[in-house]
């Protein structure tokens, strides 16, 4: 049974006074073992940069668990806003493979949440890793996405940096998941 939930409203353009925090983009510290840099851009339906988006990353630990017991190095959470070019970056490590509710193994991925002016509700997507071809091929979530759109969820390796753009609308629109 569901009670009367409090409805969502947009984060608006002025969340900068309250939500971003120092080093929020560092899910792990620079120089940590296995650290990788993720870079991307948030784009609107005209392909224009979205300079006022807020992104949150939430990832399981190295064993694929979200309770994060025994993992004192990082909380697995990151938060960062886009800059005037719509660009964002995070430092993190590849998480372990989380189990799906039916017991199947999911490919390693990051949960990415998008907030912005013009988004009355937040959006949830997933970033998968380009070097996990086999795991990605059997991932139960990725396989529910029509093949032509799956590439919007897989980061690209550009000289050691993982590139992951988020297109809110239009051509090559990122796949977002209902929550």
């Amino acid at each position, binding site marked *: 049974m569901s009670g009367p939930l409090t409805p969502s409203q947009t984060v608006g353009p002025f969340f900068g006074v309250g939500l971003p*925090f120092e080093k929020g983009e560092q899910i792990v510290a620079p120089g940590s073992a296995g650290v990788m840099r993720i870079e991307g851009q948030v784009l609107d339906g005209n392909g224009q940069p979205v300079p006022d988006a807020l992104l949150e990353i939430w990832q399981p630990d190295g064993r694929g668990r979200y309770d994060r017991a025994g993992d004192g190095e990082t909380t697995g959470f990151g938060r960062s806003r886009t800059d005037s070019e719509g660009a964002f970056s995070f430092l993190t490590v590849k998480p372990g493979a989380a189990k799906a*509710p039916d017991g199947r193994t999911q490919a390693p991925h990051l*949960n990415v949440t998008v907030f912005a002016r*013009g988004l009355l509700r937040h959006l949830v997507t997933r970033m998968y890793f380009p070097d996990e071809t086999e795991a990605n091929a059997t991932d139960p979530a990725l396989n529910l*996405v029509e093949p032509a759109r799956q590439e919007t969820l897989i980061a690209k390796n550009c000289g050691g940096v993982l590139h992951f753009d988020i297109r809110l609308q239009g051509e090559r629109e990122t796949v977002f998941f209902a929550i």
Partner: protein
Amino acid sequence: MNEDEREPPYLYPDYVGTRLRAPAKPLVSLPEGFHDFPAPLFPRTIAELDHDLTRQHSGEPLGERIIVTGRVLDSDGRPLRNTIVEVWQANAAGRYLDHDDQHPAPLDPNFSGAGRCLTDDEGRYRFITIKPGAYPWKNHRNAWRPAHIHFSLFGSEFRSRLVTQMYFPGDPLMPRDPILQSIPDQAGRERLVSQFDPETTVPEWALAYRWDIVLRGRAATPFEDEP
């Protein structure tokens, strides 16, 4: 009405900002339980005075001092304890401390407009702040946002995440505000309006407003995880 039908749509053309930012393709549904995992661990610490937006500077901010309090509950009515609540708002003149805010109203050197706290054992949060002013925005001719405070909550589950806005009772701008009016039903819109709370109001000091928040819980019955 199911949970989704009570929420604002992504595309709401009267709110011009949605037109190029709302996804055009339907969201992909994952099987039940795929988003049933715990909410993020928030890495920031909460200081004792973070809930008091009137004591972050050497002097007191201008405006009407208010107490904003209420409970954070799940949809079964259970209190959410020890969960973080973040708020941000404009000052009494309707101006945010944000370089992108071009409204020609004064900044207040004694007001930054951001606070956070943890809920107590009964799920209760409490902020001391000043009543934010209305401010103009360029959505349509003569558009003004009703006074509001932005709230951000995590709750206990990933699905519980909520960013929303709290409004004040009797504000004549609410029926004209496309952001509030994007919520499809009147009962839903009313759930974002706080109530004047005479019992919590402190004589000779501050008016109080009460506003409870209900967050989404798990979608599925918990499955037995491997040890």
